[in-house]
């Protein structure tokens, strides 16, 4: 059947039965007319599906047409009174529900902030386009070189402007009073393209970005301005020392403006890119092969995304003509800013997993409350019987009971509101990245919360309403009658079994994530992270060193740190695997124009491989800072195999001017993350220090060296270098942040699920046992032994448990598959995780069922028969 027909059938279920036939006939007829009109080529008629969607509001209207406010108000009043009569039940049920509702709304709040809400202070962000570099044979999402950015800006006809930015850390202040902040180097038109207006003073202009090193001006973020200057508008025109040089503060960005990236520490200040102070002088602004700046543009009015994309063909051709480096270059675009396509995919996956987990929690809490309601309904059988005997119709009763559920859900939603309103405080702690966008609740989140509340109310309200409506009047009114509860008990069995199933799935998922974390910490990324201390040596911020003297300083630092007690090896390098980024450059075996590859590279000091624990497979290690006068490199195994398959890599050369000679082959290292495989890579000796080198120190016997002692040693070489020491092992562990976060979250929810399921099972079995007390008495009087009675009760509980666990295992497979992206070296259907979850659940269920069973074994025949 066509989708629109299905939709109408589904909507018809809402229409009161007396009018359903006619209602359906009218819609079928209208749809037929629409089909004919479309077949005849009519153009002004709506699409079938969008037309059929209208059946839903129509059906709702038809259903609610007869409802009067009086009846509804009466139901609500009565519900509040009834709920108030059993405050214990109401509170427990509402708190349980609030947990499920609050968790769902909080996660939605995160999705809202990350993916749905427009970034602050940026004008028409949907007109902004991220522009990235890629290659025909090597698809990627990458930065641009300065000349390429300029060419794109000049040639992109579809854009009003194209701007660039790159994150950079800056040292503020002088002497002992320094601090490191993250900021951005941006092109002069950055703020204009974004359409941001200054809060105080002015923002940067294209004239601030013309000549390398000639523009010492900066714009402060609102946060930095408030923190350093207490929000004093007279700062405009004052100077602030950045990296020991005075910069003029020209203005302050508006509050909330956090650049264009949704993830990462919000920039504290902006400086013109041309002001890029560094060792490299003008080089970054001249070289086509040096890509360091991220680009975005704003589409001209009236230009569509497809037109913008098409207009890039010309630009691509110009880029390819401009420099041989760009031979296979491609331009990729994506609409909007905040996250790049990969980031969006990851955020969606993560949000999807979180939504799945909290969705399961909501189901669980609904099941639990439905169960509570059913247990309570048993006590209200007489009340309901009386009302039916007095003439209340089934419909009226269902309406009343549903109203009660909705009032309860409304109460729970109210409890959840303050939790969700404080989401901006606890969500960033749960999320494994620093968020630069606010994720607090807004109107949309509260609307979502209300919707979840209503859905929850309908979900858990359905069960008690259904059973109550089916109960028979006579049975209910017979005092002490126990027969009326047959359907109710069966329904409770199903509910408890599904609770157990959900618990199994959560416990199994928690086990999978736990195993992933264990695997990750014991994985071999190609180096040994245990016992390694690292710290960034920000030589540049002292402004006292040039190329040559900074090498001397690094030499002195390494020697000094090696003397620290407890340190076995020390070295410096441009980047650190997993935690410290990775640099890439295009490499070519000498004389082979046909082979070219962008590889990872690292600039390393003496003893780097020994310090990191990277095996040297062939040849030799790279020597001390001043000890490699000829141009030599070490390559990793992957690169050697790729460039010189079947040949001895030692003595081979890489293209360069003059060429580089390979003197060593080392083991592969995973530079990016534990989950991405090692890439081909080249190691250059630290002949040219980069702006900031990372100090690496390996302790003796697997112990991380003392950070204070290392700091003291570095201060001995130069007391002015800011340095923060951290443990690489912790950094590597932190790189599994998503898995850890979700792992803790799922673990906590799994525990909660277990408790809820155990309480549910206990309640069910006890209830069943108490209803059979008289039967037990008779059995005992007839000679049954306590063990057999125990077995009777226990067996029933375990039967339900096994049913739930069986269903849960199937469900776990689905959930495991959904979180596959977070798993590390463990299959989503890992039998151990499933077994563990089953055993834990069986154990919990046995305890929960055994307690009432034990009581059953102690039934006193005379007492139970007399009562």
């Amino acid at each position, binding site marked *: 059947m066509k989708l629109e027909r299905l939709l109408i059938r589904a909507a018809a279920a809402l229409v009161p039965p007396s009018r359903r036939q006619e209602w359906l*006939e009218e819609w079928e*007829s209208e749809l*037929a007319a629409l089909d004919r*009109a479309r077949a005849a080529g009519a153009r002004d008629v*709506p699409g079938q599906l969008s*037309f059929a969607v*209208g059946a839903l509001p129509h059906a709702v209207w038809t259903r609610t*047409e007869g409802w009067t406010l009086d009846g509804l108000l009466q139901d609500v009043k009565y519900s509040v009174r009834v709920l108030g009569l059993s405050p214990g039940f109401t509170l427990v049920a509402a708190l349980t529900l609030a947990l499920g509702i609050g968790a769902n709304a909080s996660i939605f709040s995160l999705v809202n902030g990350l993916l749905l809400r427009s970034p602050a202070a940026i004008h028409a962000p949907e007109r902004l386009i991220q522009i990235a570099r890629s290659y025909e044979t090597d698809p990627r999402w990458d930065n641009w070189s300065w000349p390429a950015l300029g060419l794109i800006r000049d040639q992109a006809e579809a854009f009003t402007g194209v701007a660039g930015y790159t994150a950079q850390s800056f040292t503020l202040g002088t002497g002992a009073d320094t601090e490191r902040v993250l900021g951005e180097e941006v092109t002069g038109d950055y703020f204009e393209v974004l359409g941001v207006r200054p809060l105080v003073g002015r923002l940067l202009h294209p004239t601030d970005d013309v000549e390398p090193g000639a523009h010492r001006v900066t714009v402060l973020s609102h946060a930095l301005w408030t923190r350093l200057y207490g929000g004093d508008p007279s700062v405009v025109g004052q100077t602030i020392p950045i990296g020991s040089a005075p910069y003029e503060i020209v203005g302050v960005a508006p509050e909330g403006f956090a650049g264009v990236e949704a993830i990462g520490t919000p920039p504290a200040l902006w400086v013109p890119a041309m002001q890029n102070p560094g060792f490299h002088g003008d080089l970054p602004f001249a070289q086509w092969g040096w890509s360091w700046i991220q680009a975005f543009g704003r589409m001209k009015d009236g230009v569509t995304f497809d037109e913008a994309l098409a207009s890039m063909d010309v630009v691509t051709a110009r880029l390819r003509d401009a420099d041989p480096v760009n031979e296979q270059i491609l331009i990729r675009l994506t609409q909007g800013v905040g996250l790049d396509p990969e980031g969006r995919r990851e955020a969606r996956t993560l949000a999807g997993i979180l939504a799945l987990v909290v969705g399961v929690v909501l189901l669980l809490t609904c099941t639990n409350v439905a169960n509570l309601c059913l247990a309570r309904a048993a006590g209200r059988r007489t009340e309901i019987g009386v009302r039916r005997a007095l003439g209340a119709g089934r419909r009226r009763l269902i309406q009343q009971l549903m109203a009660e559920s909705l009032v309860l859900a409304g109460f729970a939603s109210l409890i959840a509101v303050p939790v969700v309103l404080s989401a901006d405080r606890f969500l960033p702690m749960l999320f494994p990245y620093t968020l630069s966008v606010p994720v607090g609740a807004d109107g949309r989140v509260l609307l979502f919360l209300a919707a979840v509340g209503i859905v929850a109310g309908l979900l858990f309200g359905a069960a008690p309403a259904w059973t109550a409506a089916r109960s028979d009047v006579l049975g209910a009114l017979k005092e002490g009658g126990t027969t009326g509860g047959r359907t109710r008990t069966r329904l409770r069995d199903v509910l408890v079994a599904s609770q157990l199933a959900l618990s199994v799935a959560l416990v199994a998922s928690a086990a999978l994530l736990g195993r992933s974390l264990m695997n990750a910490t014991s994985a071999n990324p190609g180096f040994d992270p245990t016992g390694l201390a690292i710290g960034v040596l920000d030589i540049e911020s002292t402004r006292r060193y040039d190329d040559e003297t900074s090498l001397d300083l690094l030499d002195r630092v390494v020697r000094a740190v090696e003397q620290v007690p407890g340190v076995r090896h020390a070295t410096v390098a441009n980047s650190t695997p997993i935690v410290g980024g990775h640099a890439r450059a295009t490499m070519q075996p000498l004389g082979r124009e046909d082979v070219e590859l962008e590889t990872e590279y690292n600039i390393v000091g003496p003893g780097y491989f020994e310090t990191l624990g990277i095996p040297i497979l062939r040849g030799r290690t790279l020597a001390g800072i001043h000890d490699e006068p000829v141009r030599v490199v070490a390559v990793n195994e992957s690169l050697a195999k790729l460039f010189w398959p079947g040949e001895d890599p030692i003595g081979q050369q890489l293209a360069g001017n003059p060429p580089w000679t390979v003197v060593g082959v080392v083991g592969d290292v995973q530079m990016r993350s534990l989950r991405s495989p090692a890439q081909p890579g080249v190691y250059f000796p630290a002949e040219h220090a980069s702006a900031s080198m990372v100090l690496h120190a390996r302790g003796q016997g697997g112990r991380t060296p003392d950070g204070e002692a290392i700091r003291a040693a570095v201060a001995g070489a130069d007391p002015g270098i800011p340095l923060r020491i951290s443990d690489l092992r912790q950094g590597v562990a932190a790189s599994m942040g998503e898995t850890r976060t979700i792992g803790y979250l799922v673990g906590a929810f799994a525990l909660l699920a277990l408790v809820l399921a155990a309480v549910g099972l206990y309640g069910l079995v006890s209830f069943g046992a108490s209803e059979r007390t008289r039967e037990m008495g008779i059995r005992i009087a007839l000679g049954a032994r306590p063990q057999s009675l125990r077995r009777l009760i226990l067996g029933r509980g375990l039967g339900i448990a096994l049913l739930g666990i069986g269903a849960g295992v199937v469900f776990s497979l689905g959930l495991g598959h959904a979180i596959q992206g977070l798993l590390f070296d463990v299959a989503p259907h890992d039998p151990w995780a499933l077994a563990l979850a089953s055993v834990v659940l069986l154990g919990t269920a046995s305890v929960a069922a055994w307690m009432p069973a034990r009581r059953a074994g102690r039934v006193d025949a005379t007492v139970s028969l007399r009562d």
Partner: protein
Amino acid sequence: MPRSLGITSLQILAAVRAGDAYGLDIVTRTGLPSGTVYPTLGRLKRSGLVRSRWEDQRAADREGRPRRKYYELTGDGVKALEAGAGRVAGLAESLGLRVEGAR
């Protein structure tokens, strides 16, 4: 007489007055979404401004399609539409706009 009608209701009443109106007709004439048109028709019917009738099965059979439910204005409906149109025209006039064919 109900309280003064909204623009949507007036649009629908006007589309019904154009004659031989069934739901899709009214959706096409007014350009309103079906989810607005049908409930509004229901409301107008309850207030006695429109009435509906099913067409003769034989007429539908002749054209080989399911029979349609047609809507038409009641006397009250005609009055309400005229009063509403007058109100709209008055409003437009007070804003200095010219409305063609409103009366």
